[in-house]
């Protein structure tokens, strides 16, 4: 059974449909990249997978159990959200934030098991931040915070890793580090990954599936099915090229800031 199944699902919030008839699965060895222009529903889809939003229509199964039912699946998706401007005085060290990833698995007042403390240290090592464990989280750079949140999301460990724009607001050098951590985790820990991004180029080598979300339309499939100039140009409503350079392929997409109501 796949880890996640969406069968003809409509997503949206407050009764507004954002996308209809989404059908896809996430298998254990998948690296799924969700991309598309702003406002097309990427984050809405992520929130539906996480169970924060209920699907408006259709069947959704996460780890074999319906997303709308009472089930512990929420604790098994490691989530890396977009975060903005954490107050510089926020009283938590990097270690505090990482260890909090196991809180949903604990009973109230239960002492943190040694196993999780060791896991937190191991995850900090994985993301290359062991030396910063006692640094206030808010004092870390944007890229370090992202890597810290990945270490947090890996507590458990989770059965799926879901990242929302993990490299937004991060400089180029940090972006490479963040992406390395994600790809290595996927390969070594064999955790399926769902990644939402504006920039798909860095993931062409690792991604197994793509969901391109447009306004009221979407494309799901492999590289050859989705990363095509005519498909991309239709969704982005601008001319998009797929270019080949040194054996690697790139797409040239300018992000289109559409007003959905326009």
């Amino acid at each position, binding site marked *: 059974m796949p880890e996640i199944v969406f069968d003809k699902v409509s997503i949206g919030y407050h009764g507004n449909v954002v996308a209809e008839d989404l059908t896809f699965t996430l298998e254990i060895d998948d690296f799924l990249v969700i991309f598309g222009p702003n406002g097309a529903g990427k984050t809405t889809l992520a929130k539906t997978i*996480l*169970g*924060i939003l209920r699907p408006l229509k259709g069947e959704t199964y996460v780890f074999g159990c319906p997303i709308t039912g009472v089930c512990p699946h*929420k*604790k098994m*998706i490691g*989530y890396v*959200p*977009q*975060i903005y401007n*954490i*107050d510089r*005085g*926020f*009283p*938590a*060290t990097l270690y*505090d*934030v990482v260890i*909090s990833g196991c*809180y*949903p698995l*604990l009973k*109230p*007042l239960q002492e943190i098991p040694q196993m999780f403390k060791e896991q937190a240290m191991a995850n900090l090592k994985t993301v290359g931040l062991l030396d910063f464990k*006692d640094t*206030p989280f808010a004092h870390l750079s944007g890229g370090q915070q992202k890597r810290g949140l990945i270490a947090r999301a890996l507590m458990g460990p989770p059965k799926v890793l879901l990242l929302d724009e993990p490299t937004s607001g991060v400089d180029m050098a940090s972006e490479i580090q963040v992406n390395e951590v994600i790809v290595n985790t996927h390969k070594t820990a064999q955790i399926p990954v769902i990644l939402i991004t504006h920039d798909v180029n860095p993931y062409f080598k690792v991604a197994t599936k793509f969901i391109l979300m447009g306004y009221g339309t979407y494309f799901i499939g492999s590289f050859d099915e989705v990363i095509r100039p005519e498909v991309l140009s239709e969704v982005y409503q601008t001319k998009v090229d797929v270019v080949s350079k040194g054996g690697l392929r790139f797409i040239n997409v300018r992000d289109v800031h559409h007003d959905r109501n326009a």
Partner: protein
Amino acid sequence: MIEMLKLSVIQRAFIAVLIAGAFLPLAGSISLLSGTSFLAAGFAHIAFAGIASGYFLRFNPLLGAVVVTIISAYSLWYLSEKKEGKYEQTLSILFSFFMALAILFFGLARTYASDAMSYLFGSPLMANLIDVILLVVAFLFYLLFVIYYQRELFQIVFSTELSLASGINVSSFRLYFFLFTALAVVLSMKSVGALVVYGLMVIPPSLSQRISKHFSQMIIMAIAFGVVSSFTGFILSLAIDVPVGAAVVVTATIFYLVSFIFKK
């Protein structure tokens, strides 16, 4: 002064001021971290309308304050959570509306209620046994709540998004937090006064945040600073005969300023 501390009325006042000194920074810490510091000022003014209604309709003013503040705490939660009202705007509207009601009721009562001033400026000597018991019980309740749910609270103040994804019912927590903050404000008013309730909710947590590295440490230190400020303020007010609330807040502010000498 030692003789005075033997009087039961003084002892009761002392307890009330110390508990207010712990309760308000406790509620204030969560408030500060979740960006809702204005809550205390809002509730203090709203409570004043309840007190005014008590004088006008001739029932216990404290009861009036509790009822009015709880109702407005619930309304604030309902309008901002369920009806997508903006929290800040909703609170400002409730604040002004209830302040207007307070003035209206005092006008209609046509008596100069000097007793009402005890809520404004604080007068712990007028706190009766029931006032003190209510304050202690509400404080212990909130303290146990915060200890029991400390991990949920940490996640909520860190990131709403992550909390929702972890399956935490953020909306319910917000309601409990509003209700407890309302109670902290109302029940502390008699001992320290509506005008300085806000100070005790904001100053000790701000000081504590400056020097704390961890969430639980910040809350514990905020309570400690609050209690020390209240203790010092109370003794000062007995010694040099100044209003307790003012003495407490001035003390807390001095502690805050002194903290700038030390680096985090």
